[in-house]
């Protein structure tokens, strides 16, 4: 009866695991020597470049993912709390929250129109004394677009953790004289820790591969994001060695967090 599962195993091996092994091997070869008739030249040069010349690309990627995770945490917790405890029109909220999930591309594209001279945000920006172009191509706008894209994942994880917390615990804390802030720090936060960590890691893992947002909204500095550089080096300039090494680094970043997020998210993801 295990024959039933063989197509699934074949699919993932042929179109995921084998290609990943393939690029792992390729990441140790010199530029495009993998193709040369005299055989590939093996080298550690690509990884030396990753820890030297391209180290700033790795940092930018981590910084963007980290900042958007932070924004999601700060704004996601109150949102999830209100949603779970006070809101009765939850289906409506779900309907609205679906929009960012259609893809980072549309979010980034839409944000460009918002921030464009004459766009929706112009009055607000004028009031703050910021020029449109200054806002359009900047770190905050990239982080903002990335945060909107992943906000629903964060709310999903925190909301699941919160709905398992009995509301009477908060009432008990209040009866015993705790102020709201104390209740938050000493009751709610410890009880929802697993959801917060799972959500943060999940958001980080998704945003590490950011592609459209830095490209459409960022300066040259944000465009150093690994996923975009990988595309440039690999597909446009055919430096296969370097671009596969970037792929391996990106994969390690995403997997490291995924491993921890799966450990913390028992219940949040499966339930």
């Amino acid at each position, binding site marked *: 009866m295990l024959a039933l599962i063989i*197509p699934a195993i074949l699919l*993932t091996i042929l179109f995921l695991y084998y290609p990943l092994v393939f690029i792992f091997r390729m990441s140790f070869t010199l530029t495009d020597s993998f193709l040369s008739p005299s055989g590939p030249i093996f080298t550690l040069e690509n990884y030396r470049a990753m820890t030297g010349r391209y180290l700033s690309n790795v940092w930018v990627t981590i910084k963007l993912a980290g900042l958007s995770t932070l924004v999601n945490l700060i704004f996601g917790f109150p949102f999830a709390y209100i949603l779970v405890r006070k809101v009765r029109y939850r289906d409506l909220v779900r309907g609205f929250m679906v929009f960012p999930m*259609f893809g980072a591309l549309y979010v980034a594209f839409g944000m460009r129109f918002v921030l464009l001279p004459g766009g929706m945000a112009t009055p607000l920006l004028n009031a703050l004394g910021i020029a449109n172009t200054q806002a359009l191509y900047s770190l905050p706008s990239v982080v903002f677009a990335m945060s909107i894209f992943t906000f629903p994942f964060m709310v999903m994880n925190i909301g699941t953790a919160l709905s398992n917390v009995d509301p009477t615990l908060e009432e008990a804390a209040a009866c015993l004289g705790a102020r709201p802030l104390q209740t938050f720090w000493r009751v709610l936060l410890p009880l929802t820790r697993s959801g917060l960590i799972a959500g943060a890691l999940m958001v980080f893992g998704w945003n590490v591969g950011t592609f459209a947002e830095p490209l459409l909204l960022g300066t040259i500095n944000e465009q150093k994001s690994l996923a975009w550089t990988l595309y440039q080096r690999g*597909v446009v300039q055919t430096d296969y060695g370097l671009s596969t090494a970037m792929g391996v680094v990106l994969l390690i970043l995403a997997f490291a967090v995924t491993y921890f997020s799966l450990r913390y998210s028992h219940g949040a993801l499966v339930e």
Partner: protein
Amino acid sequence: MNRRLNSRRLGDILSHAYIWFCLILFVTPFAALLSYSFTGSQGSYAVQNFQYVFGSFGNNLWWSFKISGLTLLLDLLIALPASYALVRYPFPGKQVLFSALTLPLYVPGAVIGIALVLTYNFTYHLTSSIWGLVMAMTVGTFPLMLTPIVVALKDLPVAFEEAAQCLGATKWQTYWRVVFPLIGPGISAGLLLSFIIVFNEYLVTLFVHPPGVTTAPLRVFNLVRTAGLLPTTAALAVTMQLISFVAVLAFFRIFGTRYLKGTYLI
């Protein structure tokens, strides 16, 4: 007492205001695209933009639907037997296998893209066939199809199948006439999630699309990058999002949100 009641009401008002503030932020990018897609070249109100979507971009939309359809079909054909084996038959290493099958969900799109385009080039020679693209989409969305079906099967008591077999049904009959209808909502959830991802996918497509095949999201991406900002591009992006939204709404109406718990959508 009165003061406390007032501060509580104020808190409630602020809470709901915060929720609405966030919701407005969520739809702002979409609203901006929508309003821009109605502007014409001379600043006039122009429905021509949407006529353009079904005219000049019609081909791209058609490719998107075709790739999505083929992907969903393959996903379903592979996930149905796999989920049944995973839930109903005991075998060692089941948890590990399930994790290994759902791992593609966590691989960044750019990594899947570069890995597949290189293996297609040098090993599989799939670069000029649309099956390369379809397989890339299938492997990426397979976990989204598998998980809801596994959850639905786990919730289904074995007693139904045992009863059917006691009454003389073959295994095949039991599956199609008892199990399949009962896990229907799980299957639809998988179909919905996979559809939304495949239909709007541009990143992996950018790497592995065969020459001459440009799906609608890839067209949006290319146009934004090269042609700058055009109302017609905005109209195409709006159309894509509206189609996806209608799919989600239809699902919510028919099955509710229960079957999407713990998956990609709330």
